[in-house]
Every structure is written in structure tokens, then in C-alpha cells.
């Protein structure tokens, strides 16, 4: 009796120690660091961060990316997931192929797209060979923010849609097919079935996928860095620049804290917006 009470805690202890040492301690250190400056303890680092020329730009770019990439990924993953549901033959192979990008690191993905899209890249050569462009065209520098943005979106969608897909496919498989069938009998056309039956029942999986993807999307860096360097400032990129180039750990920590707060806010947002009422869970 008494043993069963402490056993779960004992079993959890190693994980808690691990988390404490490798996650919680650095987290507290980062927060402390963000308030420490030359002038002692205070908001100096935050002042410096906000006053920087790239701050507003990096906020705007990061949010723009998140707001573009996430809806695209969810829509694509939903479409792909529903297509997979309809397939009876070769389903596993298609799913497997679609999830290959999951195995590619984000920096590697960025470099792949750089090889495709840079001045001397494959796309440029191909378009030139077809006579569609007069010569090597730059798409990824600070004079071409729109194409650079599109390139980053493309690379991000290519790289990270699969994780949404995997979560949603798992969720779709959990929905018994009789629900959609009953709706079909009672007169619901495909779009109505999707909106009234599939989407609501998929809410728990959608929530997981959205939290995971949004948090990761706010931390977007390697792909952006590979494609455009600092031509397209994003929050993590700025933190990295302050840390490496300016050797200012305090401002870098302030960025880190800001990103954490945004991620937490995004998580809370999805938890509330896609809340599944306990009485509805069946």
C-alpha cells in the first residue's frame, strides 16, 4: 500500500533530475542573465534589445513566417492525411515517402534549398536554359525580401509539414469511420462532413500538432540562416548574432526569454482555442 504511493515518484525521479539539471537550471540562468548588465541588475538588456534596428524587423519577420507557414502546413497536412485515408493500396509507401524530410536536419534542408535557389543554383540554371530569365538572378539577398521570404516559406513547408502530417494521420485513424458514414446517410456532403465531423473529432490531434509546430516555428533559424544569412532577421537569428558577433550574452539571453514567452503564449492560445470539453470526450 505505502509502497505503491511513492513508487511512481521514485520511477519519475531520474527524469526529473535530468530535466532539472539540463533544462530548469539553464533556464533560470538564462533568465537571470537577461537581467544582468554592466549597470547591475535591471532591464538594461531588454532596453538594448528593443532599441536595436533589427528588433522590430525580426519580430515582424518571425510572426509573418509563423502566420504563413503554419496555416499552409496544417492545410497541406490535412489534405494529405485525408488523401491517405482514401487510399487502399500503397498507403504506407506514400506516407513513408512524405515523411522523409523529417529525417533531414533543418540546416541541411536550408542548404538543399540554397543549392536550388541561389544565383548559380539549379532553378536559376534551368530557367536560364529554358530562356525564361536573361541571366543568373539573385532571389535571396536583402534587395529581394519577397522572394527570400517565399524561399524560406517553401523550405520550411517542405521540411516540417511531415511532422504535422504524422500527428494528423494518427488522429484520423482514431476516428471510427461510422461517424462519417452516419453523417453521409443523413445528408452531409463531403465538405460538410469535413467541417462538422472530421475537424471537430480531430481537435485533440490538431491541438498537439499546432502547439508543436508553432513553438518550433517561433524558433525558426537554421533554414533562414542558410538561405539569407542576416538579410532576413528572425528572433533566434538575432539572439545568435548578439551572442556570437557582439559577444553580448545579456541581450542574447533577453531574446531567449522573449522567445520563450512568445512560445508559452502560443501554447496557451492553442490550449484555449482548441480546448476539448471533458464531457465531449468519448
Amino acid at each position: 500500500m505505502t509502497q505503491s504511493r511513492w513508487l511512481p515518484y521514485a520511477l519519475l525521479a531520474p527524469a526529473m533530475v535530468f530535466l532539472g539539471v539540463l533544462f530548469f537550471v539553464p533556464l533560470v540562468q538564462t533568465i537571470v542573465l537577461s537581467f544582468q548588465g554592466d549597470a547591475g541588475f535591471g532591464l538594461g538588456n531588454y532596453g538594448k534589445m528593443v532599441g536595436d534596428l533589427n528588433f522590430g524587423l525580426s519580430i515582424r519577420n518571425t510572426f509573418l513566417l509563423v502566420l504563413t507557414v503554419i496555416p499552409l502546413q496544417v492545410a497541406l497536412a490535412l489534405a494529405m492525411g485525408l488523401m491517405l485515408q482514401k487510399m487502399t493500396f500503397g498507403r504506407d509507401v506514400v506516407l513513408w515517402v512524405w515523411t522523409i524530410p523529417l529525417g533531414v536536419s533543418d540546416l541541411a534542408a536550408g542548404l538543399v534549398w540554397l543549392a536550388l535557389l541561389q544565383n548559380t543554383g539549379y532553378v536559376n540554371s534551368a530557367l536560364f536554359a529554358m530562356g525564361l530569365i536573361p541571366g543568373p538572378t539573385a532571389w535571396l539577398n536583402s534587395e529581394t525580401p519577397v522572394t527570400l521570404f517565399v524561399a524560406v516559406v517553401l523550405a520550411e513547408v517542405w521540411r516540417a509539414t511531415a511532422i504535422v502530417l504524422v500527428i494528423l494521420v494518427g488522429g484520423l485513424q482514431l476516428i471510427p469511420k461510422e461517424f462519417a458514414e452516419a453523417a453521409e446517410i443523413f445528408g452531409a456532403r463531403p465538405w460538410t462532413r469535413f467541417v462538422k465531423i472530421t475537424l471537430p473529432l480531430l481537435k485533440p490531434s490538431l491541438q498537439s500538432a499546432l502547439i508543436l509546430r508553432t513553438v518550433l516555428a517561433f524558433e525558426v533559424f537554421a533554414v533562414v540562416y542558410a538561405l539569407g544569412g542576416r538579410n532576413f532577421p528572425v528572433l533566434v537569428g538575432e539572439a545568435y548574432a548578439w551572442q556570437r558577433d557582439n559577444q553580448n550574452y545579456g541581450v542574447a539571453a533577453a531574446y531567449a526569454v522573449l522567445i520563450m514567452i512568445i512560445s508559452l503564449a502560443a501554447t496557451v492560445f492553442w490550449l484555449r482555442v482548441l480546448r476539448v470539453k471533458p464531457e465531449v470526450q468519448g
Partner: protein
Amino acid sequence: MAGIVIDRIAKSFGSVTALQEVSLEIADGEFVALLGPSGCGKTTLLRIMAGLESRSSGRVLIGGRDVSDLKPWERGLAMVFQNYAVFPHMTVYENVAFGLAMQKKPADVIDRQVKKAAALLHIEPYLERYPAKLSGGQRQRVAVARALAVEPAVLLMDEPLSNLDALLRLEMRAELKSVLREAGTTTVYVTHDQTEAMGLADRIAVMYGGKIVQIAPPTQVYARPATTFVGGFVGSPPMNFLPVDSQDGRVTLGGQSIPVPGSGARILGFRGEDVTLAAPADGLALTVRVVEPMGSHTLLTGRIGDAVVRIVAPSSTAVRAGDVVGLRLDPARVVFMDPASGLALDAAA
């Protein structure tokens, strides 16, 4: 106007043959029960009628119209699913209203129909609840109410009362029957409960191994089973079967001479209540092994040769386990089957 014709419908799932060329005609407003053991293809046939399952061959006509290639919602029917399929994210009210909402009926019409269906199925107290907070039997009634609310011309029901307790089932059965009769709804009702099929249906289609082995009114299925399977499946207790040898078109049992179609080995079938008890010397001798008083009658179980025989005796009977009784059969009510095929032999044959 909404009769159903099932024309040589066959269905295989890979190497499994679920239905082999099933044909069935159901008149407008008729109530047909599909009765059969688990796995005989009842649900598959119902799903093909609804358009939820593809068929391997054959046609389905509803109201004279070939609906074989129409979408489920174009067939003008409602259905109660074997596992209910009540939407978990909608309240009971929203569930029952679903079909009407899809037909874009005005709110007051929806409200009236929902209340009516809910009253019939006794689920009014739960209208604002979510299905997760209901028992299996309550959920099942929601599924039935959802189908009744649209007042369909054709109603397909897959074991809609299987999860109710005996008393509620009896009550719902009677209400369903009267409501559907009044509305003139053409109904196909799947069940493996033979009492339910007997009580509800105008005709019973007995299925076995992906085929309809007999389609007839309940009393005829009961008294004149088309095969030994039907006799053994329909009725409680099941029909008794004795192997007999026909000589010159007659068989002598316990001093009784009964006419038999043809000669040779036959199986004689008789119902447990179609005998009269007599002194052992005056009939077919049965050694009673078990006596079960059921209230309305007493069930006697024993053996004649190798065959287990169950007799329905009056509850006043004084027979005890171990007694030997004589059975006198009613020649007009016995049936004969071919031992090889199990098929009933016509008296004329």
C-alpha cells in the same frame, strides 16, 4: 412508393464471400427482419442497401429507381448503425436533429420532430447531454431517434435494440412497430434475436452463410422451416429433429403411423409444443433428463436415440427427471427434411 428490390447482390471481401447472390423484394411499407447468426452477412447487406459498401455484383432498387450507384444521401433512407455512431461532439439534441438540419428544415420543424422522436424513445431527459455521459442503451436509443426524426421512407436498422434490458426492449419493440406501421415506413431490421424478428416483422428473411435460406411470414418460418438450419435457429426451444426411415411413404413412431414424402432416410422435425404427453406405451418413449419450470410452461429435455429432444409441457405437469413419458406427434405439424441437403421436403413430393 418506397419498396426495395435487391437483385442478385453479391459481395466478397478479398477471398471472403460475405454475400452470394442475395435477392429480396420488400413491398412499400413492409417490415422485413433479417435474421441470422453472427457473420452471416446481415450488416454487409444492409450497408450495401445504404450505399456505404460497394457491391461485387447485382442491383439495388428503391421505389423502382436503380440506386446502385447513387450516394447514400441520394437514396432517401435513414439508418441505425450496429455500433450506434452517435456523434460524440454533439449533444443528444444535436444528434437527433442532425438529419433535419442537413435537410435545412426550419428550426421549429426540427424542434418538433426532435421532441417527438425523443419522447418515443424516452430520451427527453438527456437532450442536453453529450453521448459520453450516456449508457450504451441510452446511446442506442439516441441512434434510433436520430433515424426516426427524419421520418424516412426507408429505414434500415442494424440490431437497434440489442443493448437494452429485456423490459425496455419489449416496450421499445412495441412502440417501434406501431410508429413505423402508422408512418408506412419500409423497414429492414437486422437482428439475431429470433423473438424480436418474430414479434416485429411482416416477413422474416433468415440468412445463413451469405444467403437467404428462407423468406416468409413469422408463423410460417416457425412452423414450416425451409431447412434444418432454420428450424434449429428459429424458435426457443429449437425444433427437434429425429432421423427416421420412410417405408412406402410412411413412418411408424411409437405406434403412430405418419405419412412421409417419398421413401428412404428422412429427418423428421417437430416443435416441442406440438406433442401431447401420453403413457410410455402409447407413444414415442422419451427419458426425461432435465425438467425446467419456466412459469408459463415447463421445459422437458431428454434423448430419443442420439437426438436431444426438448418438449414444452404444461406448467401443471407432474413429470420429474428420470421419468419416461410417451410422446404423440401431431401429423399435421411435423416437417420432413432430406438428411443430405437439410432442405424441407414438400408433403406432395
